[in-house]
């Protein structure tokens, strides 16, 4: 995408820039959404409820967790709390983006929170650290553009999966699209020694803590990895 002096771009222009920048990533969101539609439908949910999940929650990992617990007939409160534990990382994303987006009006923060996804978090986190000249209004409109693409894509992909997923051949291995996409997204952000240290710690501790239930092992691993990244940075600066 062509970059031009951004102080001349209106908030509305930034909204569409965020929207267009996100469009290529639709390729990564679609397989995951389709897969949710397929699995939830095969689990026995009617299409209205399959869509209900995707419209209200907009978070792949939490939705998959909820449906798999429901297949085991887990108690309602366990299903809700476990899915929310899987989504706790969203609070960390919220804290990370707060310095960039926190100044936006309530309605816009409400919308951006609704459309905050792993994918546009990484996009925005990278972009906003580069575009320090953008005002907070510009950042908020850019992010809103990315959110809109994510929301629409996620819901439509789920719908496609629920309608016609059974027709998909198994060899597509749709479930691998997600991890591979995330590797591709994270790799370019590993640009310094502290990033390398944080990424390696994240993998090692996530595997070590994998037996801890409710996705809490991942959160613990993430906290340790952040501490290690920050500590390596501090020592390098000294």
């Amino acid at each position, binding site marked *: 995408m062509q970059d031009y002096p951004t102080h001349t771009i209106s908030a509305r222009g930034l909204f569409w820039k965020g929207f267009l920048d996100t469009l290529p990533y639709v390729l990564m969101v679609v397989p995951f959404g389709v897969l949710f539609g397929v699995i939830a439908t095969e689990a026995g949910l009617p299409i209205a409820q399959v869509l209900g999940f995707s419209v209200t929650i907009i978070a792949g990992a939490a939705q998959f967790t909820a449906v798999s617990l429901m297949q085991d007939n887990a108690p309602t409160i366990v299903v809700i709390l476990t899915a929310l534990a899987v*989504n706790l990382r969203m609070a960390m994303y919220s804290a990370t983006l707060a310095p960039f987006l926190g100044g936006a009006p309530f309605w816009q923060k409400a919308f951006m929170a609704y459309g905050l996804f792993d994918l546009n978090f990484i996009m925005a*986190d*990278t972009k906003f650290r580069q575009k320090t000249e953008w005002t907070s209004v510009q950042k908020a409109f850019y992010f809103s553009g990315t959110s809109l693409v994510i929301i629409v894509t996620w819901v439509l992909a789920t719908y496609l999966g629920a309608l016609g997923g059974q027709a998909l051949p198994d060899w597509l291995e749709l479930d691998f699209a997600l991890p591979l996409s995330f*590797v*591709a997204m994270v790799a370019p*952000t590993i640009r310094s020694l502290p990033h390398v240290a944080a990424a390696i710690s994240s*993998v090692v501790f996530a*595997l070590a803590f994998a037996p801890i239930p409710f996705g809490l092992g*991942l959160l613990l691993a993430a906290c340790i*990895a952040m501490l290690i990244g920050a500590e390596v940075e501090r020592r390098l600066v000294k």
Partner: protein
Amino acid sequence: MNYSDLTVWIIIAGIGAGSWALRFSFMGLLGDRVLPQWVMRHLRYTAVAIIPGLIAPMILLAPAGANAPDPARMAAAAVTLGVGVWSKNIFAALACGAAVFAVLLNVAS
């Protein structure tokens, strides 16, 4: 699965409301106040601290229905990582990794 319609909707609404609250939390409550330097130093690493741990089990552990890790997945992930770190290009990395994965699957079957 053995839930009433109402229960399923309660589950959906509960997770939906809770997820929104988690996402809104800091953005909504902190506003854009300037955070201390040491907090920002940690938040710089949020993405690289979470995402690798989130996906590592999907790549390095046995996939559903198998009892050993899948070498094709590990090779594809390694290629994607290498191309991504080197080229800084998300789509080049994904294309190379997906191509390796497709080739290995066809060779294996």
